[in-house]
C-alpha cells in the first residue's frame, strides 16, 4: 500500500525538525528556531495544498500483528481531517513566527522549538489517524509534548507542578479512552474508522459504554468537567504554547475525536456528553469572572468555549425540512467543528495578543497592574479588540456565526440547554469586556505598563493574520468562495436558523451581548482593584470558592484517600515482598555465608582436622556405616 506523498510529508517534516533539533541544535537556539519555524511553514503550505487541492483519500498499511489482532497505520483524509489540518497548520505557523520574537531572549530556545516541532508532529498524527489505536498513540504524544512545553520554565516549582498535574489528569481520561478502544476492538473486531462506520450502518448495536469511555479521553484532553483542573494551571507555560496547545489545537483534539467517532454515538451517550459540555461552559465562565491574571481569564474562557463545542456535539443530529421531505443532518458535529475553527483563530489571536502584552509589559501578567496600553501598543490593542468582539459574538465576526449555529441547535433540541448557553454567552461578553477594558484603557498602573512597547514584526504579523481570519472565518462565502467549498463535508452540516427561529436567535444573541458587555462596562472602570470584589465581596468569594472547589476536592481525595491506600500498599509491600520474600532469601543465603566464613580460619591445622573428618566420612561411606 502506498501512501499519499503529501500526507507523508505532513508527518515527516515536523518529526525531522524535532529530531534535528533534539540531536544537534539543543545549544543553538537561533538555528533551532529557524528549523522549527521553517518546518511549520512547510507543514502549513502542505496542509493548504492537501486541503484545498481536492486530495481526499484513505491509505493504510499493516504495522504489526499480534495473534488475531492486526494493527494498521493509516491516513484517513476527509473534509473533517482537512479542516482540522488546515487549522493546525495555520495556527501553528502563526505561533511559530510569534515565538521567534517572543522567545528571542530565552536560554533554552532549542528545547522550546524542539517541543513545538514534536507537538506539531503529534497533532498532525491525531488529525490524520484512520484508526483509534493510532490516534491513541499520537494522543499520548501530544500529552507528552504538552507536558514538555508547560514545563519549559522548569526552574519554577509552579511550572513543574502544573506540567505534572496536566500529565496525570490527562492520564485519568486517557485510561477511559484506552478501555473504550479495547471494548471497541472486542465488540467490532476493528478500530478502523471506516470499518466502524460500515459496521454501525449495517445495523450493529452499540452499547452506550463504548462512546462514553471514548468520551473520557475527550474529557481529559479537552478539559471538560470534572477533569478541567489542569488547563488553568497549564498557563505556566510560555504564552505562545498556551495559544497553540491550550487554546487552539490540542484541547480541541477532544472535540475532533468525538466528530471522528460520531458513528458510534447513541442517544444516551449524547445526552451525557451534552450536559458535560453545558455544565463546563457555565462553570468556566463563572470562574473567569474573578480572575486577575490575563492568561487565566483566557484559560477559563477556553474551557467555557470547549464546553460550548462539546455541548454542540452532544445536541446531535437535527431533522431539517428539505423541500418536502425531512433530511437528517449531523448538525451537532458540524456546529462543533465550525465553532472549533473560528475559536481556534480568535482564541489564538487573544492568547498571542496577551503574549504581546506580557512581552511589552516586561512579563507582567496581572491585569490590574496594566492599563493604558491602547496608546502604547496600538496594533496589539486593535487586533485584541477584534478577538474580543469575535468571541463575544458581535454580528459580522466569526464567533457570531458559529455561536449562533450552536444556539439555534440548542433552541431546536432542548430549551434548557439553550437557556444555559445563552446565559454563558452573556457571561462571556461580561468577562471579556472586563478583561479588555482593564487591560487596555485608562492610565498605566504598573511599572511594566508605563514603559510598554510594541514588539517587532514577528510579534505583530501573526496577530494581523489571525485578526483577519477571526473576521472572515465565520462567513459562508469564506468557505464557499475563498476556500472553494473544500470543507463542504463539514460546513454543509452546519444548520443555520431560518424564518422565525432566525429572529429569535439573532435577538437573543444581541441581547446577551448587550447585557453582558453593558454590565461589565458599568461595573468595571480601569482601576487597580476588582470592582466586583469591592462591591459584592460575598458573590466574589462564592465564585472563588466555586473555582477552588474541584482542586480542594481532588486535594482531599489524594491526601486522605489515595495517600492512605498507597500507604497500606506500601506497608504490605514492605512486610510481604521486601520483608519475607526478598529479605528472607537474602537472609538464608547470608546465613550460609556466615557459617562458611567461620570455617575459613587460614590455619593449616584446622584444615588438617577437616581433612581428617573428610577421610572419616569417606571411609564411613565406603564401608556402609554412613548412607546417603
Amino acid at each position, binding site marked *: 500500500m502506498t501512501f499519499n506523498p503529501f500526507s507523508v510529508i505532513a508527518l515527516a517534516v515536523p518529526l525531522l525538525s524535532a529530531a534535528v533539533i533534539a540531536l544537534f541544535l539543543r545549544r543553538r537556539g537561533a538555528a533551532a528556531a529557524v528549523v522549527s519555524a521553517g518546518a511549520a511553514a512547510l507543514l502549513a503550505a502542505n496542509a493548504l495544498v492537501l486541503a484545498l487541492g481536492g486530495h481526499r483519500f484513505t491509505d493504510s498499511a499493516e504495522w504489526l500483528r499480534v495473534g488475531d489482532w492486526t494493527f494498521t497505520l493509516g491516513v484517513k483524509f476527509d473534509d473533517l481531517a482537512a479542516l482540522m489540518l488546515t487549522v493546525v497548520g495555520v495556527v501553528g505557523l502563526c505561533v511559530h513566527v510569534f515565538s521567534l520574537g517572543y522567545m528571542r531572549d530565552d536560554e533554552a530556545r532549542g528545547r522550546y522549538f524542539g517541543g513545538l516541532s514534536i507537538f506539531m508532529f503529534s497533532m498532525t498524527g491525531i488529525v490524520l489517524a484512520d484508526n483509534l489505536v493510532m490516534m491513541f498513540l499520537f494522543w499520548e504524544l501530544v500529552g507528552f509534548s504538552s507536558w514538555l512545553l508547560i514545563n519549559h520554565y522548569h526552574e519554577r516549582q509552579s511550572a513543574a507542578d502544573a506540567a505534572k498535574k496536566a500529565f496525570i489528569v490527562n492520564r485519568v481520561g486517557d485510561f477511559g479512552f484506552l478501555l473504550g478502544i479495547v471494548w471497541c476492538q472486542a465488540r467490532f473486531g476493528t478500530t478502523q474508522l471506516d470499518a466502524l462506520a460500515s459496521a454501525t450502518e449495517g445495523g450493529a448495536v452499540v452499547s452506550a459504554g463504548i462512546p462514553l469511555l471514548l468520551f473520557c479521553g475527550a474529557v481529559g484532553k479537552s478539559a471538560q468537567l470534572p477533569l478541567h483542573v489542569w488547563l488553568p494551571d497549564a498557563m505556566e507555560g510560555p504564552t505562545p504554547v498556551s495559544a497553540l496547545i491550550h487554546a487552539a489545537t490540542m484541547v480541541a483534539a477532544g472535540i475532533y475525536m468525538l466528530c471522528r467517532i460520531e458513528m458510534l454515538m447513541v442517544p444516551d451517550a449524547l445526552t451525557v456528553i451534552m450536559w458535560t459540555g453545558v455544565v463546563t461552559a457555565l462553570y468556566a465562565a463563572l470562574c473567569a469572572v474573578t480572575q486577575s491574571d490575563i492568561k487565566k481569564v483566557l484559560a477559563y474562557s477556553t474551557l467555557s468555549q470547549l464546553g460550548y463545542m462539546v455541548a454542540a456535539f452532544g445536541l446531535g443530529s437535527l431533522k431539517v425540512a428539505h423541500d418536502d421531505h425531512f433530511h437528517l443532518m449531523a448538525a451537532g458535529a458540524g456546529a462543533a467543528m465550525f465553532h472549533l475553527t473560528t475559536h481556534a483563530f480568535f482564541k489564538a489571536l487573544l492568547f498571542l495578543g496577551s503574549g504581546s502584552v506580557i512581552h511589552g509589559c516586561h512579563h507582567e501578567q496581572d491585569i490590574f497592574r496594566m492599563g493604558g496600553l491602547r496608546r502604547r501598543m496600538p496594533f496589539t490593542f486593535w487586533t485584541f479588540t477584534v478577538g474580543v468582539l469575535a468571541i463575544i459574538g458581535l454580528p459580522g465576526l466569526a464567533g457570531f456565526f458559529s455561536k449562533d449555529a450552536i444556539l439555534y441547535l440548542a433552541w431546536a433540541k432542548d430549551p434548557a440547554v439553550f437557556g444555559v448557553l445563552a446565559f454563558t454567552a452573556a457571561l462571556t461578553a461580561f468577562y471579556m469586556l472586563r478583561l479588555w477594558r482593564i487591560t487596555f484603557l485608562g492610565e498605566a498602573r504598573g511599572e511594566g505598563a508605563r514603559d510598554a512597547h510594541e514588539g517587532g514584526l514577528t510579534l505583530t504579523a501573526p496577530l494581523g493574520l489571525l485578526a483577519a481570519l477571526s473576521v472572515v472565518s465565520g462567513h459562508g462565502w469564506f468557505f464557499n468562495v475563498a476556500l472553494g467549498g473544500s470543507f463542504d463535508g463539514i460546513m454543509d452540516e452546519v444548520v443555520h436558523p431560518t424564518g422565525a427561529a432566525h429572529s429569535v436567535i439573532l435577538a437573543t444573541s444581541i441581547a446577551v451581548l448587550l447585557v453582558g458587555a453593558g454590565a461589565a462596562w458599568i461595573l468595571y472602570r480601569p482601576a487597580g482593584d476588582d470592582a466586583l470584589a469591592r462591591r459584592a465581596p460575598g458573590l466574589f468569594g462564592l465564585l472563588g470558592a466555586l473555582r477552588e472547589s474541584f482542586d480542594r476536592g481532588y486535594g482531599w481525595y489524594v491526601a486522605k484517600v489515595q495517600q492512605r491506600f498507597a500507604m497500606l500498599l506500601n506497608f504490605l509491600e514492605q512486610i510481604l515482598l521486601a520483608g519475607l520474600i526478598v529479605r528472607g532469601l537474602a537472609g538464608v543465603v547470608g546465613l550460609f555465608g556466615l557459617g562458611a566464613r567461620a570455617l575459613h580460619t*587460614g590455619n*593449616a*591445622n584446622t584444615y588438617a582436622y577437616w581433612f*581428617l573428618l573428610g577421610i572419616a566420612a569417606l571411609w564411613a561411606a565406603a564401608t556402609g556405616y554412613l548412607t546417603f
Partner: protein
Amino acid sequence: MISASLNAYVAVSVLLFAIGLLGVLIRRNTLVVFMCLELMLVAATLALVAFSRHNGTMDGNVLVFFILTVAAAEVAVGLALIVALFRRRRTVQLDGLNTLRN
C-alpha cells in the same frame, strides 16, 4: 632368622602412622609437621613391605618404590618452600601463617 608375625609389623606401622597424624594435627612448627607427614608415608611403606612379604608377591614392594620416588620429590619441593617461607616471613610457626584468612 627370627621372624616376627605380620600382626607385629602392622601394629608398628599403625603406631607410626598415628604418631605422624597426631603430629600433623597438633604441632605448630611447619618443619615438624612436614617430618610427621614423612612419618605417615614411612608407616604406609612399612605396612606395604610387610604385606608383600607375607603374601610372597612383589605388588607391595613395587608400590613402595613409587612412594619413595614421590616422597623424595615432595621433600625437595616442601623443604624448598619452607626455606623460602622462612626467608620471607622470618617464621615457620603455623599460627602466624594465616594470611589466607583475610
